């Protein structure tokens, strides 16, 4: 299958290794991966912060960039939820019927990485090897927006050499929420404190998730605590093999 990668702007700017891992993983599974260099940002930050018109401009751009794709896969639950759930809603708010139809046509071809692997490709064992103690944080948009369910866990359980540790309060938001973390720093920090405490309680070497935005926030908190526990994107674990560990 030919897969179009939508990297997301956060990964593009800060986490190139997640994009590289996604490419290598999908290629290892026998697919070709394309990267349209025109792509930038899905507009989530704009829409969630209340700039609907700016967000719609970026949504139109996304639709234009990926209109002809067979499938679009992104290593981010929140961006996938944005495209699939919020684009159509935003088009309705703006009363743009033509755009709404285009978005609805594209939406079924848009996937977050783990749901693409498990639900679309039917793969849970991707041949990964990752000899570390890891705990998994289910991100809100993947869990409640996209309903990816246990797809990430099913993938992680098949990773050889890895110890998967259960996280207390896993389903509670880490407190990132995009600009929420900057606009309501105290509440966000209180949520983060609980999340990092639960992560450290597991004794894990690394916390993984399907969204680098959440991991940026959680990792920033762990770094401030000088905890030594790292964050690593799910794609990087799944791309790792005995020959080459990517993360």
């Amino acid at each position, binding site marked *: 299958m030919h897969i179009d990668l939508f990297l997301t702007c956060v990964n593009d700017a800060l986490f190139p290794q997640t994009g590289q891992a996604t490419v290598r993983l999908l290629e290892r599974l*026998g697919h070709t991966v394309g990267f349209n260099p025109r792509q930038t940002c899905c507009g989530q930050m704009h829409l*969630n912060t209340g700039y609907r018109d700016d967000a719609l401009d970026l949504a139109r*751009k996304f639709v234009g960039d990926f209109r002809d794709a067979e499938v679009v896969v992104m290593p981010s639950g929140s961006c996938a939820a944005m495209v699939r759930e919020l684009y159509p809603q935003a088009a309705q708010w703006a009363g743009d019927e033509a755009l709404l139809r285009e978005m609805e046509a594209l939406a079924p071809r848009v996937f977050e990485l783990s749901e693409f692997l498990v639900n679309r490709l039917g793969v849970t064992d991707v041949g990964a090897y990752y000899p570390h103690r890891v705990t998994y944080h289910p991100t809100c948009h993947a869990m409640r927006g996209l309903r990816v369910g246990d797809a990430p866990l099913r993938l992680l359980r098949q990773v050889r050499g890895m110890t998967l540790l259960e996280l207390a309060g896993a389903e509670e938001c880490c407190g990132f929420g995009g600009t929420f973390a900057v606009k309501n720093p105290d509440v966000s920090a209180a949520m983060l404190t609980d999340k990092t405490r639960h992560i450290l309680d597991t004794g894990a070497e690394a916390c993984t998730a399907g969204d680098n935005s959440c991991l940026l926030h959680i990792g*920033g908190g762990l*770094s401030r605590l000088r905890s030594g526990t790292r964050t690593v994107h799910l794609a990087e674990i799944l791309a790792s093999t005995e020959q080459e560990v990517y993360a």
Partner: protein
Amino acid sequence: MRANLRNVTGAIRAKRANVVGEMPHWEQLRDLGAALKDDTLADLPDRLLQLERSVQARGGQVHWARDAREARDLVALIAEQHAVTELIKVKSITSDEIELNLALEERGIHAVETDLAELIVQLSKDSPSHILVPAIHRNRAEIQELFNTELPGEGQLSDDPAALAGAARRYLRQKFLTTKMAVSGVNFAVAETGTVCVVESEGNGRMCVTLPEVLVSIMGIEKVLEKVEDLSVFMELLPRSSTAERMNPYNSFWTGVTPGDGPQEFHLILLDNGRTNVLADEFGRQTLRCIRCSACLNVCPVYERAGGHAYGSVYPGPIGAILTPQLLGMYDKNANTLPGASSLCGACYDVCPVKINIPQVLIYLRSEANVQKGLTAEALAMKGMKFVMAEGWRFEGALKLARVGQGPLVRGDAITSLPGLLGGWTQSRDLQPLPKEGFREWWKRRGQEPAAASGEADTSSESKERV
């Protein structure tokens, strides 16, 4: 306060999950609840007129209040007509919305809250911080101290919950038996029959709606249901979602007046106070499905940390964050900040018994609020970001610039302090710096290398050389 909140919301949350879990058709029931509410809202004027006729036909009186002031005046007028200087109240957030107690006090009428938690809030001259558990922010020791000073004749009470409840019971019982007029809220009103319903846990509500001579019930116009049978759906949805009980201990229904039994005068006040504006907005309208169960407050991580008072509104939590700005309008300086008080985690939507998509309404209202705020520094920053993001090459260029520009901010391997609007980030977290090579550069470099280039077209990339 955070510890109190965590204990109580945590306990309700776990109990709720249990009693919802035992309902195999919970999802269908939620859909039905949402659909019934939507249908009624679609015909709201007709339903309300039908309700008015039904109530009048059974000997009740119906009053229409466009705003809070009209509703307050109506209650005060009825009290004055009966020369009442003290009345008893069933817990009603609608009455808080119209600031009834304060208005009555100014006219020499003292309103006594009879719900235990509302009484605690009232005696401590505080305001409720939760829709269902108004004194959630108070612990037992604080209540002991309060009762020892505010309930004379009880002596020194211990902090035993039974002793504290007993003292409140003795105080309230005397009020129930001697007060001539009561004010209640309304959980549901049935248009078909004119039946009004209040559900509660302590029995104080039952006392208030049966013992006094005069009963005034205030309802937001969205509380009307079409048929009696609709009640059965909400009687399942409401208690399980709110108190995590299978059924409320007290469900009181009354229809007009019955000679010789119960209040001989019944007034129903239909309150608009901004609701028709909410109804007029096709995207915000779903907010009016709300049955005030407070399940969204109990799961909200923001509410749990900030508490109810932080919202500065009588409706706290996620539902307050969408209801208050719509009721008051986006020009209200506090209300238009409320849609921002969420990380959009979506837990509220998952538990809402009438499927109000709170996260989506929050996002919708954020845009509405920004329109009201005009061109702020944030709006300009967003415009700038959009300009950069509008073309791939611009974004690539901006990343290159940022890599150079971040130099002075990087300490070791992290950015520990950001300037200006972004300072909130580094208050409690480090930021990792931009990497030396971005994905785009890697992708280009990879495409230029012969081995990788041939690998791009090769679907079986097993033996492909790693870059």
